């Protein structure tokens, strides 16, 4: 019977004491370098401005661990890469835990108490688990190499849309070298580990407590058996083993030492980033404190420490790059590159103990590491980037803060300047008189209540487009008719309503936003109502998520949930199921921003439409291009616009009859894009409200049915 205590691995077997000492010295050296590098990174983050973390660390930690263990954010839209990452992650984690376990026994428990546990059954299971872990790690790495080397997904191409090939920071070949060095070094560590294991078995084949239990290390022993059969002797194996041992050990230690200086640091930065995640990063932009003199981000040190950390968390996975509508339509913007540019900038300027001159900290411009205003103005604040980023990088607040600085300096498109002035003067982007805000109601048979004068259940916040744009006025009239038929008690603020400010804020004109929000909040407070309803997702977002910071906390719903309730409760009755084949475009501000994916789809079902979703739907919906104030800026001519790109996607749906939208700006953007892409006559663009109107019997038919219009 073999004593279970002898079933173990003797550490440093056959090593001279000096060798062990040298190894420990190198080990401590590696840890020292690691700690020093970590300090440099922390010192870099400390140059950022203050940021107060909300909520408890425990809950944040739990949520981060949940995300990490499930790999929830990593498998999205790329199962293969997510799966391979899981193999590497869990393989690496197990191997790390394994090594730590040995350290606990060998360096702590045994010297202090004489206690041991790393032998016998525990040791055998340990060997098995770590062999599997090593295999997972290797498998994941090989897949990633295949992906980078052969599959070459476009999102991993680091060439930038905001630089030209002649620019020094165009393709960042340094990153590619680092990627490959990372994969190879880990793979070499894994493979040499297995070879080492095999060599030890061959070397110690004479010991039954080793050889008889070899299959608990299946890969190592398969290798050992093969080598022995090929004629490898115990002694040679022993020699190879000592050489390889150093090789393996030194690479592993170098790997650890270099963590803070290489992409490997994402192990820590990504975890921290996930822990600091702000679930409303795009929905609720930061206020400018009254005490603050300057506005927006001019210098790298204007970013807060959390944002500096986010920069380091980016793994260049390219998901945001792929999802970005600006990048997809050739604009000089990739959210990934904004983050990487700023990261490179921070690494260059904040690496030492002293700050350089302020001019060298300016992040605006076209030099390496800087972000140009063309890039910043290309953003549609559609949230596709923030939403998909697996490591919780929050691009939009950084982009908007940088825009605030541009607005302050007046560096923007003349048309945008005009629009902002118009809004400041008239309270709406159409430059119409305030008095005319309610003019669209004049066409209605029954007037709408004035919520300023009498209490109502629902306060309808109409918004600019639904108030002034002629096509959308029709939709507003239709919606009013539906509410009246359903006996909903509702009213308007009439000329006390102003532009809600969502897009003004995303443009970066915070002062004007403040003015608009405060005026609207005051008007709302002077009215008596239970809930706000709106047909405009942009207004919906800012009232729901941002007015609170300005003293206006209201209950608000988007019209889709209200209509769904009215249909479910029978207050509106479907008498003419439509039977159309439709597709639905999720508006950014309703879908991604506020997770209102289901209500419109439920309604489409209730009114008897056959919904065929586009490939990019729900959280992956593709922005129409109007967000972030882009609707007030001209798009470059001769280039595909995001709305056209989207309509072409819809056109692939066979037999599509109606392209359904539920946002006033979408109606404008997509009706236009249907014409300019030559799809007019093939299908029509309709507001969901109009389809509901068609399906719900009414004494007067206001709109011609879809067939007649197509």
């Amino acid at each position, binding site marked *: 019977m073999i004593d279970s205590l002898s079933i173990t691995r003797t550490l440093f077997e056959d090593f001279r004491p000096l060798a062990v000492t040298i190894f420990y010295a190198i080990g401590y050296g590696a840890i020292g370098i690691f700690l020093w590098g970590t300090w440099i990174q922390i010192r870099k983050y400390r140059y950022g401005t203050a940021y107060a973390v909300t909520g408890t660390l425990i809950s944040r930690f739990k949520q981060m661990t949940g995300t990490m263990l499930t790999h929830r954010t990593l498998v999205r839209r790329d199962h293969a890469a997510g799966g391979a990452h899981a193999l590497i992650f869990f393989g690496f984690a197990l191997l790390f835990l394994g090594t730590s376990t040995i350290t606990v026994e060998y360096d702590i428990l045994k010297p202090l108490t004489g206690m041991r546990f790393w032998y016998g059954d525990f040791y055998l299971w340990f060997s098995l688990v770590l062999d599997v872990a090593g295999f997972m790690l290797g498998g994941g790495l090989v897949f990633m190499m295949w992906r980078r080397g052969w599959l070459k997904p476009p999102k991993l191409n680091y060439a930038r849309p905001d630089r030209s090939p002649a620019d020094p920071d165009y393709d960042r070949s340094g990153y590619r070298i680092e990627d490959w060095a990372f994969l190879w070094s880990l793979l070499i560590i894994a493979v040499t580990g297995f070879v080492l294991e095999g060599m030890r078995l061959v070397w110690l084949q004479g010991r039954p407590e080793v050889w008889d239990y070899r299959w608990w290390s299946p890969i190592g022993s398969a290798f050992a058996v093969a080598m022995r059969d090929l004629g490898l002797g115990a002694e040679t194996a022993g020699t190879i083993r000592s050489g390889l041992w150093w090789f393996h050990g030194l690479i592993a230690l170098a790997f650890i030492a270099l963590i803070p200086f290489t992409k490997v640091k994402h192990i820590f930065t990504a975890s921290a980033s996930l822990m600091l995640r702000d679930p409303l990063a795009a929905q609720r932009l930061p206020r*400018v404190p009254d005490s603050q003199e300057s*506005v927006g981000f001019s210098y790298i040190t204007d970013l807060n420490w959390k944002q500096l950390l986010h920069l380091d968390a980016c793994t260049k996975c390219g998901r945001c790059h792929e999802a970005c509508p600006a990048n997809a339509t050739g604009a000089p913007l990739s959210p990934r590159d904004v983050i990487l540019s700023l990261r490179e900038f921070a690494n260059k300027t904040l690496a030492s103990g002293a700050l350089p001159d302020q001019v060298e900290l300016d992040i605006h411009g076209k030099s390496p590491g800087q972000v140009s205003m063309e890039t910043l103005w290309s953003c549609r604040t559609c949230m596709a980037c923030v939403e998909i980023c697996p490591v919780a990088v929050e691009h939009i607040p950084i982009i908007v803060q940088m825009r605030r600085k541009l*607005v*302050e300096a*007046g560096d*923007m498109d*003349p048309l945008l*300047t005009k629009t*902002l*002035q118009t809004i*400041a*003067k*008239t309270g709406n982007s159409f430059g119409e*008189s305030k*008095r*005319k805000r309610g003019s669209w109601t004049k066409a209605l048979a029954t007037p709408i209540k004035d919520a300023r004068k009498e209490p109502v259940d629902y306060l309808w916040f109409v918004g600019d487009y639904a108030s002034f744009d002629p096509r959308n006025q029709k939709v507003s009239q239709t919606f009013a008719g539906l509410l009246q038929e359903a006996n909903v008690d509702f009213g308007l603020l009439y000329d006390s309503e102003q532009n809600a400010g969502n897009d003004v804020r995303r443009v970066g*004109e*915070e*002062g*004007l936003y*403040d*003015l608009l929000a405060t005026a609207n909040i005051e008007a709302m407070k002077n009215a008596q109502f239970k809930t706000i309803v709106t047909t405009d997702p942009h207004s919906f977002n800012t009232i729901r998520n941002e007015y609170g910071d300005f003293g206006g906390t209201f209950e608000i719903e988007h019209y889709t949930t209200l209509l769904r309730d009215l249909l479910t409760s029978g207050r509106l009755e479907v008498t003419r199921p439509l039977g159309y084949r439709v597709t639905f475009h999720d508006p950014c501000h309703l879908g991604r921003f506020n997770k209102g994916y289901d209500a419109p789809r439920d309604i489409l079902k209730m009114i008897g439409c056959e919904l065929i979703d586009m490939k990019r739907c729900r959280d992956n919906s593709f922005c129409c291009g109007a967000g972030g104030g882009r609707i007030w800026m001209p798009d470059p001519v001769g280039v595909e616009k995001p709305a056209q790109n989207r309509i072409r996607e819809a056109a692939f749906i066979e037999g599509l009859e109606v392209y359904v939208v539920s946002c006033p700006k979408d109606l404008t953007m997509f009706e236009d894009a249907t014409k300019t892409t030559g799809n007019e006559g093939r299908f029509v663009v309709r507001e969901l409200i109009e389809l509901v109107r068609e399906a719900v019997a009414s004494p007067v038919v206001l709109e011609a049915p879809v067939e007649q219009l197509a």
Partner: protein
Amino acid sequence: MATKILVAVKQVIALDEDFEIRADGKDVDADFFLRDLNEWDDFSLEEAVKIKEAGGEVEVVVVTVGPEEADESLRKCLAKGADRAVRIWDESMEGSDSQAIARVLAAAIKHEKPDLVFAGVQSSDHSFASTGIAVAGLLGWPHAAVVNQFDFSLGATQATIRRELEGGVLQMMNIDLPAVLSIQLGINTPRYASLRTIKQAAAKPIETLGLGDLSLNAAEVGEVGSASRVRRMYIPEKGRAQMIEGSLAEQAAKLAAIIKEFKGATV
């Protein structure tokens, strides 16, 4: 010594689509007024601020003649980079025409002693296009109107300007300083004053001057001091337009009927 540039500005009235004429028929009902800084003044102020930003010791002073509401426009000027703002007003100035306003401005210029005076070519509401020139006349200074390019180095006794003439002809000229220049749209790109800077400018003082401060008397301003008086303000009758619809034959018949009606024929 610092170079002082005085920019004369005006808060103009913009109108909504539907507005009403005041009961006395001499002006639009004040209920319908939308006030804003005159568009031309955006450009003349920008030109002055640009000179200041080019370096050297330059002080930009904006001056307006108007009641308290005009402070809002002055604040916008302060937000855009003016150093000081002066508002001149007295009840008696109500009803002043461009001559009377020029008299007040000329007095203010004597008071401020600037090296250069900018005005807009015209105001978008009253469109006299003569205030700037009248100021120069009263001061006996050289003047140039419709300036669309301005070159000048600090301390120089002359400036080179370019003016727009009829038929797209441009004129380059040298002008002795101090002078009064009326600035044309498009000479530069006026900057955007963010709401935040406008709000911050609210904290800056606006100096107010009255008749006495400028040694003027009530007879020199207002309707009495003016060379012209408003008799009536009205909206002319609109011509009629009508879309003739229907088939070709129907359209022809309708058209014939209309012609007959106008001719008064009885055939």
